[in-house]
């Protein structure tokens, strides 16, 4: 249900950006990390509900999930951290450092101009 707050923040950011740009926003791209635990269906539903009656109504929301990276202490390589099987995908070692989880980002807005 925290998706509601994410959706609200998204809508506010898009409204603020739309005021600075010509045209109507038609698509927004966002990305998130693993530990943000964003559910696409819930977020899209919340986004549509909160968008109603604003300039965001009808916008297509694209959500990209970015991997959280681990850095192996044995082979030194970076790998995509899998939450259910946390080990280096290169050498299988389970000794690694977790790199920061990608934050929730509003990456891009596409505006339709005349």
């Amino acid at each position, binding site marked *: 249900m*925290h998706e509601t707050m994410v959706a609200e923040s998204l809508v506010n950011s898009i409204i603020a950006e739309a005021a600075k740009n010509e045209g109507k926003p038609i698509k927004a791209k966002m990305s998130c990390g693993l530990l943000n635990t964003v559910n696409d269906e819930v977020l899209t539903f919340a986004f549509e509900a909160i968008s109603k009656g604003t300039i965001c109504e009808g916008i297509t929301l694209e959500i990209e999930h970015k991997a959280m990276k681990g850095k192996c202490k044995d082979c030194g390589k970076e790998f995509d951290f899998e939450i259910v099987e946390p080990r280096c995908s290169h050498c299988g070692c389970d000794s690694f450092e977790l790199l920061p989880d990608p934050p*929730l*980002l*509003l990456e*891009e807005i596409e505006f*339709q*101009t005349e």
Partner: protein
Amino acid sequence: MTNKRVQLGRKILSANEEYAQENQNLLREKGKYCLNMISSPGSGKTAILARTISDVRDRVKIGVVEGDIQTDIDAERIRATNAPAIQINTDGACHLSATQVNAALHQIGLNELDLVVIENVGNLVCPTAFELGEDGKVVVLSVAEGDDKPAKYPAIFSKAKVLLLNKIDLVNMGAVDFDVDKAMADAKRLNKDIEIFCISAKTGEGMADWYDWLIRKAGK
């Protein structure tokens, strides 16, 4: 018809993160340790805190920020131990935000405390996504909830510094089927550094080791 793309790369929860940073700065400046306690409703967070506060009061002064959707029942339970408690009612929201915690930290009387515990809204998912400026997260899992929870709700177990397996007396008396070894192994698989304490806030079993950890972290 032409389209224009505007690249932004803007943090969506930046308002929360700015307040989380401010909270952390305030706590560091005053030299206070802070924990964010997360669990399902009914796992025993408040019971653990009330007993902990009473048992360690000679060593560590604890203040509590209570998050609940409604009522100040939990803050009253904490105040009954003579510890300061600030109640936040989220009016339906499923997690605390750093803004709410910021206001509470300014009211709680930080100078008199060694440790601040933020008891988050009972929810094993959403609070995990919102940093509050704490030094670490404590996840509480009561045995009545089932031993599959670390596997089913991995994010919080992956992020937490400590796992408190509460109501362990129910396992010992055979009242619930809970495979302690499986739950611990699943949590360790997600997070090999997680510290696990099997406790009962009711009987006091296992609480001493948890207190030692807490006292060490509070710099005592």
